[in-house]
């Protein structure tokens, strides 16, 4: 230990007050009496909420309820009328392929 260290180490330090010791004693005594803190309790609430959410999700996944509408076979018959019918039934001799059929309108 050199000179400055020795001088510093020989100084008498101010001590904490009796009031602080009393406050600390009261705080420790209260902590000993107190059951698990609210923070810890809320921790269990969060765990419970998480478990309940998981259970609901699992129930929804395995439930027998139909998730999509049942598929049904639908048949659409498109009939040409007028000149188009004539063209389809009796195509001109020079036509080597059928005219292109374009259907406009919304589908069900």
């Amino acid at each position, binding site marked *: 230990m*050199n*000179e*400055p*260290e020795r*001088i*510093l*180490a*020989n*100084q*008498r*330090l*101010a*001590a*904490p*007050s009796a*009031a*602080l*010791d009393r*406050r*600390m004693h009261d*705080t*420790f005594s209260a*902590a*000993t009496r107190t059951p698990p*803190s609210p*923070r*810890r309790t809320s*921790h269990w609430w969060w765990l419970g909420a998480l478990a309940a959410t998981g259970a609901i999700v699992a129930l929804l996944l395995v439930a027998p309820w139909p998730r999509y509408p049942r598929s049904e076979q639908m048949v659409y018959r498109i009939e040409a009328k007028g000149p188009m019918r004539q063209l389809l039934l009796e195509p001109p001799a020079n036509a080597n392929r059928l005219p292109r059929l374009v259907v406009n309108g919304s589908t069900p």
Partner: protein
Amino acid sequence: MSSAETEALRAFYVGSRQHLYTYAVSITGNRESAEDAIHGVFEQLLRRGKLPAELRPYVFRCVRNAALDALRRTKVRLDSIFEVTAVLDGRGPPPAFQSDEIERWLQTLSPDEHETIVLKIYSDLTFQQIADLRQVPLPTVASWYRRGLDKLRTLVTTDTP
């Protein structure tokens, strides 16, 4: 917190109260604020679910943060870490230097040098513990300490009666 941990924390306070107090006063410069900072830290620790594995550096770091907060609020640094009546009360031989003189020397150091010297000499922390507390490399702490002592040595030489 379990009752065993509460008792461990209480034992730590009893064993370290002087170290923590000197450190807190060296930062706040105000004894009342230092006591409030220490009390607040232990209140928060008791509300925690579990104590950290390395309690000593953790508590010192908490006290440092609380003391710095208190310093920002008060911005008044009047109180010394030393007992000013040491010379007058007849307990032991009078020291070669008055406490206010040494306090004045310490105030000439940089904050890092000052804090490191207080932690090393008065709070009994190792360089490694101080490095962990300040979150800086160990050589940096050793350098702060050495530079601080060099400055103090110059002041001692100059002021020696």
